[in-house]
């Protein structure tokens, strides 16, 4: 394990009865990064988090966090340095917000700093005005904010966030994601689990795509995109799609594929797009849109899952003949 890796999960497998929850799972979380575990429900994201804090011990493989083994006697130190927000906020409904935070502060041994830290954390997440109210009366958004405030009370080095925006309205979700971003600015490492691709978009420094308890691939989103889309792509839509097929013969076009009126064209360089447009105009083809394709995390996610031969019950969208989804057929072709 290098000093740069806060979490190293190596070849971990775990069974719950007859069900294999994790299969040879490998994850590395670099220091100071936001790493995102992406995967459908049941992919093993929550189990992975439980392994990292030592709440569960691995059936096989090893877990090191801060260079320590969380299921050994070092577990207490690992858990003291972690802040966790679980998929359900795990709050005590009968207690006030203050009492919930106070409980955590005392378990984490904050001592005399507890009150000031509670006020600070609650203020940071905009929940300070509601601290005297019973948590049972909080909205879902307030509960999530309180859980987030609780997770940072003790100044953890590693934040483990399991679906932190689950059940939130879009505005609250955006606020929560912004707060997560701020936390890495303060030097923390964040491991975020989500099945919401938009949530991870723009937030992830590293992603790990999980399925059936194993990691399909991991890395920086731009590097992974480069791996799946090595040449720049442009999507061109015209009124009569078949008229564009001559583009496939142009020397500048590395690959050409068309679905309906939209063509997906690989070019060595995006600077050749004007030439492409010019060729179309010369033939009086009415272009309705020209758009360079920048793969999103969603594109990447489905590309990975398609490459791995996902089953239909997990809803990998089929290739479409209109608009952006054309790239997915391209991905499938590349994968083959």
């Amino acid at each position, binding site marked *: 394990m290098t000093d740069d890796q806060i979490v190293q999960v190596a070849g971990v497998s775990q*069974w719950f009865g007859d069900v294999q929850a994790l299969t040879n799972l490998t994850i590395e979380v670099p220091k100071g990064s936001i790493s995102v575990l992406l995967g459908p429900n049941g992919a093993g994201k929550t189990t992975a988090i439980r392994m990292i804090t030592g709440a569960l011990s691995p059936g096989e493989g090893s877990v090191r966090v801060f260079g320590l083994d969380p299921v050994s006697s070092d577990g207490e130190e690992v858990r003291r340095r972690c802040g966790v927000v679980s998929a359900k906020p*795990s*709050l005590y409904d009968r207690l006030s917000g203050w009492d919930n935070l106070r409980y955590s502060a005392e378990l984490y041994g904050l001592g005399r700093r507890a009150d000031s830290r509670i006020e600070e954390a609650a203020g940071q997440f905009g929940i300070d005005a509601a601290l005297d109210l019973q948590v049972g009366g909080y909205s879902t958004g307030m509960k999530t904010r309180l859980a987030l405030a609780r997770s940072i009370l003790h100044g953890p080095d590693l934040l483990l966030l399991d679906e932190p925006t689950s059940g939130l309205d879009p505005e609250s979700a955006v606020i929560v994601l912004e707060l997560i971003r701020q936390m890495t600015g303060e030097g923390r490492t964040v491991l975020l689990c989500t099945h919401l691709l938009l949530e991870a978009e723009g937030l992830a420094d590293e992603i790990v795509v999980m399925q059936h308890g194993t990691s399909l691939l991991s890395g920086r989103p731009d590097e992974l995109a480069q791996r799946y889309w090595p040449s720049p792509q442009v999507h061109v839509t015209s009124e009569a799609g078949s008229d564009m097929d001559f583009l496939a013969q142009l020397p500048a076009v590395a690959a050409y594929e068309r679905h309906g009126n939209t063509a997906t064209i690989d070019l060595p360089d995006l600077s050749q797009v004007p030439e492409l447009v010019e060729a179309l105009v010369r033939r009086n083809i009415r272009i309705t849109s020209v758009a360079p394709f920048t793969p999103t995390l969603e594109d990447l996610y489905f590309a990975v899952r398609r490459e791995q031969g996902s089953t239909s019950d997990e809803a990998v969208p089929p290739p479409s003949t209109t608009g952006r989804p054309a790239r997915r057929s391209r991905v499938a072709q590349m994968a083959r």
Partner: protein
Amino acid sequence: MNWSRTMTVARTDLKQLIQARDFWIPMVTLGSFFFAIIPFILLITITRIGNVDVVSQISAALDALPQSAQDQIQGTTPEAQTGYALAVFLFAPVAVIVPLTISTAVGAATIVGEREKGTGEFLAHSPASAKEIYVGKLIASLVPGYVTTAIGFGVYSLIVNLVVGPEVGGWFFPTAQWWLMILWVLPPFLAICLSLVLRLSAKVKSTAAAQQASGLVSLPLIMIAYSQSTGVLFGAGYMPIIVGAVAWIIALWSLSRGVRSVTRQRLLGVATA
């Protein structure tokens, strides 16, 4: 073991209990009936109204008590003797069930409740060890029982001494053997019951199942109550001291074994292969 964390767990559980009016209002009502209302009404009826037939029947029933217990009955009139016997041998032992009921009800919900509410996840990821969580929850379950015992028997003593005391020559309750019972015999039995209840709470799938099962493990204390009410335990010389000593040994063993029942996996509600 970090005692600060242990007490934090206990304190937080107790704080939640205080907030749970739907729990403690029925419990206070139950305690009021057993420690105050029923003893007061019956004792006042027997000692002041003096229905001769009823008193004679109860007085005759006292002959069924062991001789050593009969020797301790104070009072010169049938009303006084009946009042004394009921106060010492019937009402007080039955009231022992109240703290037991309260403690087992709290204990039964304590671990499975964390799992059901999802708060077990928070505890499982916290630095608190399984042992600290177990002991904290044990304390949180014992305290309501002991507080009920202290307050309940305080109120009960006041009532029986005010109602029956004048008939038997002054305040008499708690008798020396009842002090022994309250301070030496009951606590280990309560602890034994709770150690079993907490184990159940850690293992079963729902609070309802834990509460059903906890009824069974309450049997030892109910047996003690019966022993008291029939005079078997109470009038038998050194027997309470011996029973208490044995109960303490079993309680300490049972409590130490119970620590193993609380694991992070159980707080999360997962069963690994």
